[in-house]
């Protein structure tokens, strides 16, 4: 006899706002999952009628862990709307802000948010469990403090140019506010060197950055792990071995379609910012990959669905430029009482070419493997191979996230050395009405801002964050969002401690504290509810 269960877990995610997940189980397998973003602030609505530059102050505060990424978008949206001219130094300093924020997030995410789950008792019978607990247990793990402390270093570089992290507004239309001196550049190099010596090469890789970046395929990676004791026993080596031993490569596949806006506008290729010119100017390539081929990341292919989102007075499947400022519904419910045929989340459901798409590091590294990438763009075939050999999973997604650290380190050093202290950092723009679009890759994926300025104030401001792509609810055709899809089909060993759900949600690094509710599929009886 089939055993139907329903699981509500509470919370899973861990950065900002709350996410509730409800899973329905049958014989221990998830048959259906719904994600419910449980908090609304209405930042887009607040921006309407305000000073056109308000987004520079307001949007970084949408998410404290991705504030620099919001700023990158907000300044870029104004650049395209006003038709500014950007000096190369400004593009370098903005890229540095984006890159240092992202590399900060890698150890912070790995140690504070993800790896503590590997120390869950579910894995207690595995041979590597003791070693994992010794290193990754919260606070007391031997690598935990090193990793969390290291994560604060790269944002010191951000602060050198932006004044502070989080929540600077140093990127402005026309360039940046700061005008660094040689002292700042030298100090930034020194900080990054310390980051490399204290954590990246010593604790994390167990080898030089150059050696790690020779890895081109899954077989190369496996050979790298086995190459010597230092790599085998590094935190990355242990993470790979434990992931395979614990089976993290066997679940959490997702929708199999990926979107990246790309980022790091090249210093010489975006001095006249336009919406159309952006894709060719980014160093980390943009694109949409449907599992077979690559498509151009054209923002006009984005539509937001609200059939299942608590917004009113809004037609379904609109492009952000055509959307009204969101009017929050007064009829929101809690997950236990929700009818999933109706509205059930504060997140909208964005779709690209009508598909749900996963945003995040995995999408980025898939775009990096596009053979059509231009000479100034990253070319890294590794994840084309991994997607072929292993496919997507909790492990693949997590590996993509940490894989970026060595490359980011080298790019940050290169960009620091390219700053020309005698050249301008800012060219004062002329303010005017118009429409603009700014995008980037936040640590957790594709982020974009759409702005319309009319009569000198903001008429419309729309933000689609990576977490919107990943945690969004069903669309108007009732197709599941990426996390909903990734949860479907997973096996939950112990419905009273559904760590598998937590691992899936955290592999997406959703910036929401996530609550999971488990329910019996037949009786609807709640079995368990956990904050993870």
């Amino acid at each position, binding site marked *: 006899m089939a055993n139907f269960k329903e699981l509500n877990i*509470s*919370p899973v995610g*861990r950065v*900002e*706002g*709350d996410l509730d997940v409800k899973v329905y189980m049958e014989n221990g397998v998830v048959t259906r999952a719904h994600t419910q973003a*449980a*908090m*609304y*602030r*209405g930042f887009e609505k*607040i921006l309407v009628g*305000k*000073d*056109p530059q*308000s987004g520079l*102050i*307001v949007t970084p*505060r*949408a998410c*404290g*862990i991705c504030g620099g990424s919001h700023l990158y978008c907000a300044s870029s949206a104004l650049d395209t709307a006003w038709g500014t001219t950007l000096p190369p130094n*400004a593009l370098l300093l903005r890229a540095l802000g984006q890159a240092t924020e992202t590399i900060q997030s890698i150890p912070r995410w790995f140690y*504070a*948010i993800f790896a503590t*789950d590997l120390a869950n008792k579910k894995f207690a019978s595995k041979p590597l469990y003791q070693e994992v607990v010794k290193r990754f247990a919260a*606070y007391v793990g031997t690598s935990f*403090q090193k990793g*969390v402390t290291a994560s*604060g270093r790269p*944002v*010191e570089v951000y*602060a*050198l140019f*932006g*004044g*502070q*992290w*989080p*929540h*600077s*507004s*140093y990127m*402005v239309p026309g360039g940046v*506010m*700061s*005008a660094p001196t040689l002292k700042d550049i030298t100090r930034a190099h020194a900080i990054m060197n310390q980051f490399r010596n204290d954590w990246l090469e010593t604790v994390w890789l167990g080898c030089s950055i150059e050696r790690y970046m020779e890895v081109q395929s899954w077989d190369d990676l496996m050979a790298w792990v086995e190459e010597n004791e230092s790599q085998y026993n590094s935190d990355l080596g242990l993470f790979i071995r434990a992931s395979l031993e614990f089976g993290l490569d066997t679940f959490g596949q997702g929708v199999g379609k990926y979107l990246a806006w790309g980022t790091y506008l090249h210093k010489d290729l975006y001095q006249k910012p336009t919406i159309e010119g952006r894709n060719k100017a980014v160093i980390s390539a943009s694109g949409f990959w449907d599992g077979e081929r690559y498509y151009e990341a054209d923002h006009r292919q984005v539509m937001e669905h609200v059939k299942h989102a608590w917004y009113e007075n809004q037609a379904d499947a609109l492009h952000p430029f055509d959307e009204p400022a969101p009017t*929050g*519904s*007064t009829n*929101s419910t*809690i997950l236990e009482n929700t009818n999933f045929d109706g509205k059930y989340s504060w997140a909208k459901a964005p779709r690209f070419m009508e598909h749900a798409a996963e945003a995040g590091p995995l999408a980025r590294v898939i775009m990096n493997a596009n053979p059509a990438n231009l000479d100034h763009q990253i070319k890294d075939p590794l994840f084309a191979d991994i997607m072929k050999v292993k496919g997507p999973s909790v492990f693949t997604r997590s590996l993509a996230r940490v894989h970026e650290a060595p490359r980011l380190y080298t790019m940050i050093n290169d960009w620091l050395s390219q700053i020309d202290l005698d050249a301008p950092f*800012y060219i*004062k723009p002329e303010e005017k009405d118009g429409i603009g679009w700014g995008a980037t890759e936040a640590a957790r994926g594709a982020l974009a801002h759409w702005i319309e300025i009319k009569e000198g*104030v903001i008429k419309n401001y729309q933000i689609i964050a990576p977490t919107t792509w990943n945690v969004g609810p069903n669309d108007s055709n009732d197709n599941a969002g990426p996390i909903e899809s990734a949860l479907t089909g997973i096996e939950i060993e112990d419905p009273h401690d559904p*760590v598998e759900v937590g691992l899936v949600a955290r592999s997406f690094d959703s910036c929401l504290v996530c*609550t999971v509710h488990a329910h019996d599929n037949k009786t609807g009886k709640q079995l368990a509810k*956990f*904050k*993870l």
Partner: protein
Amino acid sequence: MANVLWLQGGACSGNTMSFLDAEEPTVVELITDFGINILWHPTVGLEIGHQVSDLLNSCIKGETQLDIFVFEGSIVQGPNGTGKMNYFADRPMMDWVRELADAAQFVVAIGDCATYGGIPAVPPNPSESTGMQFHKKNKGGFLGTDFVSKGGLPVINIPGCPAHPDWITQILVAISVGRIGDVLIDDYHRPKTFFSDFVQNGCTNAVAFSEKVNGNFGQKGGCLFYEVGCRGPMTHASCNRILWNRHNSKTRANHPCLGCTEPGFPHHDLKKGSVFKTMKYLGFLPKETPPGESKLAYYFKAGVGKVLGNPESADNYGKSK
């Protein structure tokens, strides 16, 4: 030893991210060396898999001693006062907050949203957000004017968007080691130790302020008060005394102070012409002037200073590298 419970309402987690950058002490040292026991925190909670609602109820019933209740983010009261726009553990967060604030020895509001309502409370305030004991400049907020926690203090406000990690850790340590009596608070419930001075104290462009040398974006030196809306002269905070991320501050990076430790932030509710621009009378007199003297007296002194002073021109000012 102090049990700390940290919850987030209408929050961006910026204060948590700031907290994780703490240096002396680090977050880990706070726990291992300073007797802070984090009962639960959305990002770094030790109690993985713990049923948090049971824990919260245990705090409310007094079964678990709640020494410090830290709240980050606005109190979301929408729609129509129900609080349903921010659900947590199957209840409106605001209902948890009210009961936990009553159970706690001390209540600490961290960041602008929790202290004064912050950006979410900017009109039209779609989520009906407010602060713990203030709504913008007005006392009251969610818990009301008369609220006093069991430890005998009103909500201790640590504003800033975000708050500096040292402001957070030092107050937690003060409570934990029994020295909260040494922490005096001002009219906006801010610990005076961090919020008596102005941001301008220690600003590397302070000389340019007194000599009326204009600064602007992308250039070295010059004061940002005159053209791009710096609020350093009228904002209480120690940003140039206790630097950010070890190295810097907004004004030292040529970034105008946004005045984010004052209850008016974001000032003028972001109205047209108020963002990164100094609002002026007659096109040249700053509408807001440093406190301590009348506007007229300031204009007079500033005018005389501008004529008599012989500052280097803004073009050459500080142009070294």
